Every structure is written in C-alpha cells, then in structure tokens.
C-alpha cells in the first residue's frame, strides 16, 4: 500500500502555504460563481463523489497484503485512506478554525460590552486560550521546559477530564427525574410501560431472589422473574428496535439516493 510521506523542514511550510493558497483560490472562485451555476456544480461534485463510493463498493475485489493481513481491495480502495480521508480531515480542520472564530467572537463581544454573565465568557476565553497555548507548546515543540507539560497535564487530566466526567454523571439524576414522569400511571399505555420496566429492572437486579424457590428448569422456569425479564427484552424490545432500525436504514438510503442524483429539494439543495 502506498503511503504519503510527511514533508520535513522548510518543505512542510511551503506545502502548507501552497495548500492554503489553492484553497483560498477555490473558495474565492466558488463565491464569485452565480447561484444558478453554483448549485449545478455542487450537484455534479456530489454525484462524482457518490459514484466513486458506489463503484468502490460494487467493483470486484482481489486480496492484497496490508500490514500483514490479507484484505479485499479493488483499484479504488487504496484512494480512500491515502487521498480522500486526509482531504476530509484537512477540510474539517479548516472549518474548525471558522467555528472557533465564531465562538471567540461571541464571547469576546460579551466581555467587551459587559453583557450579563460576561464573567463566564471571560472564563471560556481564558480557558480556551490556555489550553491552546499549553497544548501547542507541549505537543508541537520538542524543546520545552518541563513545567509546560505539568501545566498541560493539570489542565487536561486534572480539570477538563473531571468536568467531563461530572457532566456525564449528571445523566444518572436526569434518568431518575425523566423516568419518574414517564412512569407515572396516567393511562393504559403508561401502566404497561411501568409494569414492563419494573419486571426488567427486577430481572436485571435482585428480582431473582423473589422467585428463587421456583425451579430453573422445565415448565416452572417460565415463572421465574429473570425469564420474564429476558422475554420482554429479547421477544418484545429487540424486534421493535430492529424494525425501527430497518426503517431508519431505508430512510437513509432513500435520502442518500435523492442527494446523490441531485433531485433532493429543501435546505442546501434549492426549492
């Protein structure tokens, strides 16, 4: 498999400058195009991109040795990791800059005009800039003082990771309040929901103790709470979820087809 070499020394800066120049020229040309031409051009590009993946999927493959493993490939497969994925990553990185700019602009204005809650905006600006400075300093520059690593470690592992975990743990409390509202018995459907949930909860926790004396073999095993619980999960819940998944898959297929063929209307595609 062919892998692109990362340019070293001054070449990398030239390469970055070249890519940025070409990108801005393309963006400039696209923005100058009238809307009547821009949409057909985008539809054409979408069609070509879609056609590439369709051909890559349908063309016959032959086994190729990749990192010691035989994998099925055709003439187009190699282009995905070597050209398409890096291009998509570059585009994402460029657009991430735009997103970051928008975020900073909103919060900088909040601070400058001292709008209500401007202190929170200041905290966001300071924390974003700190992470950027220490992150780049620590990762990009090999010859940096030891304390830079320590500060980065404290910011990322000591502050960010813990706050992330704290947000995640909030879900437990929200599940409690949401399930309380959902399980209040107000209708026949809510009663079924409540009963099913209770059986599944008992079956997956200490419910087995209630029917502990019931034999777990033969006809009697049908009266154990674990059996009811797994029956609800496997016979009622799983097929329902799979049916929804089928519908979602078909919906995605139909929409993908409409976009690929340029017949989709609505946001981005014109009325």
């Amino acid at each position, binding site marked *: 498999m062919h892998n692109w070499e990362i340019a070293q020394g001054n070449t990398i800066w030239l390469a970055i400058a070249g890519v940025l120049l070409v990108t801005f020229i393309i963006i400039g040309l696209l923005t100058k195009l009238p809307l009547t031409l821009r949409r057909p051009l985008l539809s054409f590009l979408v069609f070509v991109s879609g056609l590439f993946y369709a051909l*890559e*999927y*349908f*063309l*016959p*493959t032959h086994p190729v040795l990749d990192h010691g493993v035989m*994998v*099925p490939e*055709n003439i187009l*497969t190699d282009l*995905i990791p070597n050209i398409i994925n890096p291009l998509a990553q570059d*585009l*994402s990185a460029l*657009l*991430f800059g*735009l*997103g*970051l700019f*928008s*975020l900073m602009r*909103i919060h900088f204005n909040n601070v400058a005009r001292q709008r209500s*809650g401007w202190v*929170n905006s200041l905290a966001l600006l300071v924390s974003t800039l700190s992470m950027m400075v220490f992150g780049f300093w620590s990762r990009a520059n090999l010859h940096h003082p030891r304390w830079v690593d320590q500060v980065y470690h404290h910011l990322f592992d000591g502050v960010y990771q813990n*706050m*992330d975990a704290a*947000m*995640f743990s*909030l*879900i437990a409390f*929200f*599940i409690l*309040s*949401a*399930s309380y*509202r*959902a399980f209040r018995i107000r209708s026949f459907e809510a009663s079924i929901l409540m009963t099913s949930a209770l059986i599944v909860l008992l079956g997956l926790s200490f419910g087995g103790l209630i029917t502990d004396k019931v034999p777990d073999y033969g006809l009697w095993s049908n009266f154990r709470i674990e059996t009811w619980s797994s029956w609800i999960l496997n016979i009622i819940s799983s097929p329902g*979820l799979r*049916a*929804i*998944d*089928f*519908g*979602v898959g*078909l*919906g*995605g*297929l*139909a*929409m*993908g*087809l*409409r*976009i690929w063929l340029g*017949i*989709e*209307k*609505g*946001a*981005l595609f014109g*009325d």
Partner: protein
Amino acid sequence: MQHACDNWFVAFFEGALIILIMVRIIKSMRGSIPFIRRIPGLNAIDEAIGRATEMGKPILMIPGILGLDIVSLQALNVFTHVTRTAARFATPIRMCVCDATLYTISQEVIQDAYQAEGKPELYDPDSVRFLSDQQFAFAASVAGLIQREQVAATFFLGSFFAESLIFAEVANSVGAIQVAGTVMTTQTPFFIAACDYVIIGDEFYAASAYLSKEPVATGSLVGQDYAKLLLTFFIVLGSIIYTVTGYAGGPHVPLIHTLFADGGWNALLHSIRHLF
C-alpha cells in the same frame, strides 16, 4: 471495508430496494402524489413555534452531535421550515452545533431561510453557534444556554447519544415545549420519557416530505414503504426456510444453498452453474 462481492445477495437486494424507491419517485414526479398519514410530532412543530412567539422567547434547535451526514442534512431540512415559520413572526431562534463543518452549512441554511421569507434583516449571525466539538462540553454549553435564555421551544433532531437526556431534562425544567427525533434507537426511549413530542425511527426521514409535500420526497417515502414490504417478505421467507430446512445443518436443497452462498461473484456463478 465492505464490498458487494462479500455477499452478492445483499448487493442484489440493495439494488432491488433502490429500484423500488426510484420507481415511486418517478411516478410521483409524473403527478401521482400519494397521501401521507398524520404524524403528531411534525404537527407539533407549528404549535411549538406559536408558543415561543406568544411568550417572546427563543426557539432552540440542535441538529445532533455528529458531523455533516444524511441525518444532519435531514435535520437542517426541518430546521429550515422552523426558521421560515419563526421568521414570519419575528421569533428569535438559536441553533447550536457540535461540528465545525455543520456550523458553516447551518449558517448558510438559516440565512437562506430568512431571505426566502423576505426578512433578511432579522437574521442574526450569532443565532447559529458552534459551542464545542466535545460531547459533554457541548452538553454543558447547551444546558447553560437553555437556562440563561429560558427558551420556550426546543427541537432536538439528529444523532444523539448520552447527552440527549441532559438537553431534554434541562429544557423540561424551564418549561419548554419539546419536539425530538433521532435515528439512534438507544436514545429514543429517553426522548419519549422527557419530551412532549417524539418523531420515531423513519418518521424522521418522512419529515421533509410531510412538511413540504414535495413530489420527489413523497414519492420516495412511498418507495420506502414498498421496500419495507419487500424486506418483510424476505424476513418471512427466511424464517420459513430456516424453520423447514434448519439451514447450515439441514437437508441439501441447492436453491437455498445458492441463496446463502458465501464469497464473491465467482461463488455466485459457481452456485448457479451447480444448480443446472
């Protein structure tokens, strides 16, 4: 990476589904517009916008937390409708995105929606916000925004994960009317528990057809239903075959072995030759 020749049956089946959908789209484009049943979650969109307008508070829209894909594009289709209706009544909107690619596209779409309603002056560039590309940092930002701005209506449409319940419960705590829809079956129960209206499964993809009544979209929707019928037929057929033959250990029936044959196009040809 998957290829058609990994399983020729799947490739042919996909082809059949595509043909069914395309046939219905073409029929619909020629004037045979089908009827679409009432979808309560989509009817509630206007109700939610109306409530936000009465209260003079913003509408919050979130197109999931993944990047630019079919799901987020469909969410943007619905949000275009929401924004156009909101623009008619000058109701403020907030759209929070978790992906930078989607952010730039969302800005364009929302601006276009205001222009289409003839009210470009109402468009506020700060109404579309990129908050963070990290799941829980985004969740915290959205929760803060809901609390600070006391939004009156929320639309959560797209791909959601564990943060779905944080959004829905915080919005519930400020009394917002909530419409949610996701293609993630693991998150649908959370939305059902916490939101007022939920768009389930493929209703999510029916949204643009339902709201626009546009021939291509409605034809495609009917095509999907025909595809589901075909799928159901094969599920029943597969169940019968499995029950009768006990496949993979049962009696040797060449036709059935051909249907389940592993391998590429050569294996298919070999199986067909073996049949005759």
